[in-house]
């Protein structure tokens, strides 16, 4: 009976509060493990097979920790609503760590909240925080997913038979362009004949356009599809239905394509969230900027699916080991797909070089255009 359940719950809450009050005497225990209440805000649904799910799965992994409690809110738009959601978590739920996971939450909303609540720690999931511009209790964290996309490319380069990979992308912004190029660079590192065919849909969530683009790419002879859109579900399912292979993005889509799934680029936000919770529990300062790729265990690839041949798995595993050791993806100058030199350094670039954050070109081998 629901009403019984309710009263039982409130009874339990009541006794828990009572127990907490009684244990106030035991200050030593409280001081050793400070209580962390994480408030996390998502821009879309928590089960979108994409960006939001990647965060939700990672934060859920912290639920088992004894000193951590989690409050979540999904479908919060990038308006004044997110400011109020964060304030509500702080005022009504006592959140002391706020994780704002959507790009547009940062400025002005999270910055304003950080100014208003200087005792609360705020962290935002994109490398936007700057020391002299933004409050000290705010900060950023980010996973360099391009590294996992590079691994996707390595596996795809050895799995493709037509040497054509299809990519459905939302908008031509830096982080998307970098993932597109990284798939191609990965594939070309093992198979120089690969080209990547690109279609932009124009927005983050346009399922009908994504399906059309996926079908067009399949029709053009691509035998592997991947994407950078909010929810990769449509592209992966379309690939499976067309009997071709697929590469995932953001979270695990392995279950959507039991026959054709090769591997996928996934964030490992868990590493970051766990370190935040630990720092706060120990009373240590939380780093303002936390970003990395394979070398810091902040990204991963989905377990290989039925679409990945043995050779592809071996090559991808070797490439992962290289990335963990910090070996460079870009070892020399890089050309764009119009023949101009886009990145001139003869020594290549470190994988986390900030120059790469502002990538604004499509690499040689990508069939498509930014404009």
């Amino acid at each position: 009976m629901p009403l019984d359940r309710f009263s039982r719950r409130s009874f339990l809450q009541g006794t828990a509060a009572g127990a907490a009050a009684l244990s106030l005497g035991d200050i030593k225990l409280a001081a050793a493990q400070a209580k962390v209440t994480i408030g996390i805000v998502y821009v879309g649904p928590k089960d979108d097979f994409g960006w939001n799910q990647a965060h939700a799965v990672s934060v859920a992994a912290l639920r088992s920790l004894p000193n951590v409690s989690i409050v979540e809110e999904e479908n919060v738009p990038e308006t004044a609503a997110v400011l109020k959601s964060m304030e509500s978590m702080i005022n009504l739920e006592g959140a002391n760590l706020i994780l704002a996971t959507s790009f547009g939450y940062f400025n002005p909303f999270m910055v304003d909240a950080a100014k208003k609540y200087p005792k609360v720690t705020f962290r935002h999931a994109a490398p936007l925080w700057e020391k002299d511009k933004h409050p000290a209790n705010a900060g950023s964290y980010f996973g360099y997913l391009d590294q996992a996309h590079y691994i996707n490319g390595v596996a795809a380069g050895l799995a493709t038979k037509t040497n054509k990979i299809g990519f459905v992308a939302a908008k031509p912004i830096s982080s998307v362009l970098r993932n597109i190029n990284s798939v191609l660079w990965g594939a070309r590192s093992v198979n120089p004949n690969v080209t990547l065919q690109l279609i932009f849909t124009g927005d983050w969530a346009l399922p009908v356009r994504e399906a059309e683009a996926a079908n067009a790419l399949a029709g053009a002879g691509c035998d592997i599809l991947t994407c950078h859109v909010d929810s990769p579900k449509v592209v992966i399912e379309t690939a499976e239905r067309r009997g071709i292979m697929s590469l995932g993005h953001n979270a695990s889509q392995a279950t959507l394509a039991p026959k054709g799934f090769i591997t996928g680029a996934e964030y490992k936000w868990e590493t970051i969230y766990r370190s935040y919770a630990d720092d706060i529990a120990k009373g240590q300062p939380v780093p303002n900027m936390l970003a990395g790729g394979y070398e810091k265990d902040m990204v991963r690839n989905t377990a290989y699916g039925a679409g990945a041949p043995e050779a592809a798995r071996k090559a991808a595993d070797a490439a992962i080991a290289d990335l963990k050791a910090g070996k460079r993806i870009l070892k020399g100058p890089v050309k764009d797909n119009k023949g101009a030199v886009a990145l001139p350094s003869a020594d290549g670039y470190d994988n986390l070089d900030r120059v790469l954050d502002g990538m604004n070109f499509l690499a040689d081998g990508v069939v498509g255009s930014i404009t």
Partner: protein
Amino acid sequence: MTDIARSASAASQSVFDSDWMIRVRRGSEALAIPIAALLVSALLFSIFLLALGKSPAQFYQLIWLGGFGTGFSWSNTLLRAAPVMLTALAVAIPARLGLTMIGGEGALVLGGFTAAAIAIPMIGGGAPIVMHVLMFAGALAVGAAWVGIAGALRQFRGVNETISTLLLSYIAIAIMNFFVEGALRDPADPNKPSTKALESVEMIGKLPGIDVHWGLVFAIVACVAVYVLMFRTTFGFACKIAGGNARAALAQGLPVGRLVIVATLIAGACAGMAGYFEIAAVHGKANASLASGYGFTGILVAFLARQHPLAIMPVAILFGGIAAAGGIIQRRMGLPDATVLLLQGLTFVVLLASETFYGRLTLFNPKARTDRT
């Protein structure tokens, strides 16, 4: 019965049927039916919650806490209510003329975008007042023009105004995206296409004593002004006549075409004003987040308020409160975000169904016949 008794009864009858009494009855009808509809939808929603194994008592308690229970909750609620009051006016004004126009979202987005675009060359220019006056005027003008287009199409070309306003909303969002991702994009922000942002000192501040921007005051003033215009002036009366029967209005010599155009312009200006405040007080720049559904919530609020400008204020606050409580309901009860939308939708349906009771209840209309068609 004696003569005296008969005349006494006649006298009481006439008091009972006096104008004043009828007005009280009609007035209480307009209050009692929506309140009953709200209660019925709350009841239906409780059954839904029980079926999910959740406690309705806890749910409504959390709505109270999250929407109205604390000072913080009130500011959260009013912040959400302010733009919705204005977009609801954009629906209610044409409704007086018998037009169902649902294009508030488009006028809000384009009005806001215009304000942001006007601001670009003046950011950091040291004349924020001039800048805000121009932004305000631009937002109102473009919002007015946008809904005015639908009014003109309706009047001169017979285009269905509901369809045209809806489609114009999508066109408005596309126009904003076109410029924000192209010519007016601020190169300083490589990842989220936006126009150049106002400096924080140039933004419109908060109301004294509460964490809500000035848009709330403007929205309330607009509701009252529209009430006076539509219910207390010859213009409003002419609109009502034209809305009741356009041919009869024409026969009376009323300029129906001009009334339609002027009313749709005013409606659009209200939504454009909401767009201005979103830019000037909340975002500081135009980007895709400007289209966040305030225009569509406004439709719901206007219908719930039965298109009455004064009723829009409490209804917008009620909806703002439900939306403000959405977060805490998710967090404390583990219900998905869509729960609150479901409650809103259910309320809307029950309220539309309750329309059938107007004029049929003998309690409010002593002479009403239940078989009236």
